[in-house]
């Protein structure tokens, strides 16, 4: 029973960051229809920037995390502006191929700059886990879930309660009408991609201090993000949030009770099984891609 509760706690904490990744990608893949293979690299970018700022430049931990996220937003904007905007009229496969090229270039760039050696990021939290009855949690993890939830809530409010959010949603649901109302569609697209990328970078910056930073850390994460998006339904922010937690819990329990070696396979098996029975994802989106 204690193990069960511990798994729930671990899964929930990890789920928070998975949700961030999922939301970012559901905007980009689900709404903008871009098969974004660079999403994992933005995650890695966030982690590497956090490393650079905290370890190398020795800035304040919390400032560094915020800055890493901001830089992630910036990189996302650049990618959209330079690569995707030019291709807007072409089909989904072409954009996907460009994203693959960008993914390879970026990942090898980290490898070149930082070498393959795993980097760790020091944090100001005590290392001794807090114990609540049968459950123990490291303080940094509590910090991570707190920030993740804050970002999730903030993002949800942004998209649903602000004028900017309305403009963003309008430009994808009905571009012609939105344009007539004075919304700058190109700007909205760049902003959406940038925000989605920023969330991925935030997830990387948050998890960097808990795990280590390696050049290939983005690969598995990217695929899991796709799993989450499919689970939650393309473009469905709430679905992606729930999907993130579901995937993390499935991984935790699968690794705990079945086999830890297959932990990372859980996500992929989940995708295959879900799509085999519900080809449109769990919370089916109205239109199909392709």
């Amino acid at each position, binding site marked *: 029973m204690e193990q069960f509760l511990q798994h729930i706690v671990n899964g929930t904490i990890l789920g928070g960051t998975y949700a961030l990744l999922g939301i970012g990608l559901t905007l980009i*893949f689900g709404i903008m*229809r871009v*098969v974004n293979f660079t999403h994992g690299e933005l995650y890695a970018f966030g982690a590497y920037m956090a490393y650079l700022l905290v370890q190398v430049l020795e800035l304040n931990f919390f400032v560094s995390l915020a800055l890493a996220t901001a830089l992630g937003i910036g990189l996302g904007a650049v990618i959209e502006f330079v*690569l995707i905007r*030019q*291709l807007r009229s*072409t089909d*989904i*496969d*072409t954009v*996907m*191929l*460009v994203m*693959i*090229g*960008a*993914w*390879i*270039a*970026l*990942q*090898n*760039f980290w*490898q*070149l700059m930082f070498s393959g050696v795993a980097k760790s990021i020091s944090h100001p939290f005590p290392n001794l886990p807090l114990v609540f009855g049968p459950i123990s949690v490291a303080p940094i993890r509590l910090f991570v879930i707190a920030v993740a939830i804050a970002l999730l809530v903030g993002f949800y409010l942004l998209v649903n309660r602000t004028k900017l959010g309305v403009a963003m949603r309008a430009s994808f649901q009905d571009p012609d009408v939105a344009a007539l109302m004075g919304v700058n569609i190109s700007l909205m697209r760049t902003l959406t991609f940038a925000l989605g990328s920023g969330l991925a970078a935030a997830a990387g910056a948050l998890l960097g201090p808990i795990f280590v930073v390696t050049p290939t850390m983005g*690969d598995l994460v990217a*695929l899991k993000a*796709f*799993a989450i998006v*499919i689970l939650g339904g393309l473009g469905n922010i709430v679905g992606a949030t729930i999907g993130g937690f579901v995937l993390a819990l499935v991984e935790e329990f699968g690794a705990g009770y079945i*086999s830890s*070696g*297959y932990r*990372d*396979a859980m*996500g*992929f*098996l989940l*995708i*295959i099984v879900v*799509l*085999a029975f519900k*080809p*449109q*994802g769990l919370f089916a989106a109205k239109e*199909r*891609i*392709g």
Partner: protein
Amino acid sequence: MSPRLTPWLLVAFFASVPLWIGNQYFLYILTATGIFIIAAISLNLLLGYTGQLSLGHVAFFGIGAYVAALCSLGFDLEFGSTVFVFPRQPVWVGFIAAIVVAAGFGWLIGRLSFKVRGAYFVIVSISFAQVMRMVALNWVDLTEGPMALNNIPPLSLWIPGEGVIGFFKKEYNYWLVLLLVVLSYVIVQRIVRSRVGRAMIALRENESLARSVGVDVTRYLVVATVVSAGMAGAAGALYTHYIRIVDPDVFLFIYTVIMVIMVVTGGKGTLAGPVVGGFIFGALPEVLREVAQPEVQWILYGIAMILIVFFLPQGIVPALANWWAAKRAKAKSP
């Protein structure tokens, strides 16, 4: 020079290479490139001609590699108290098994691809390859996991009068691979120029229209995937007997990416595309080895892919063909 003759002259040229190039390492590179070209040709049938965004292709390659290895090494599995022993098989049996098993998985994926379309299918195909990698990594009893299966026997062929000869010499492997490259090319050529190929291309160009003239979508998606997977499995079997070691890294996504780059930059949907692309990206790493680290090379490949998509969207072969045609048109008109 007649366009019909050129391909045969090229084949003759390449067949002659081991006779005047003694450098063993060079032969090794060409042979490995040849194996990748076969895989690229198979991917081209699915991606280029049928328009299926399959990014899990390395799964079929890896399955072929492991099946061939396991068949020629033999293996035993324990199920509780019973032990299932699979005896060593001659190389050619493993080779056929590799093709059949890979094609079988191709059939499964082909049937799945009809239900799951477009970008969803991309994700499913990638996931499939990842699951295969996890299985290879974790089912240690069967696959030795990361310890790899090694001491795999080399390719061998039955030569009349000599019996079965193991190909320990690089030249024999090279010629066998060259033969199989030509065979793969011809297989795909015959398919795409037939009624079957027209149906596949129709699926790529306009699926609704294809259905309205009676093309059974599921059937041709499955045919394309099965042939493509079987061919990739054959390439995997070649790889296993050539390198003689196979480990779970054979399922890495990066190898699918390499194949995709070869097909796309060479020219998807053309017969020569994967050959040209395969050659460039097979040989390039070696050419650049002295000049640039692997990371830098990969950055360049990533950028090259982006540039080609932007500026030569059809790939190198069609761009060259258009340029050549334009030149001839100019030469004809005063």
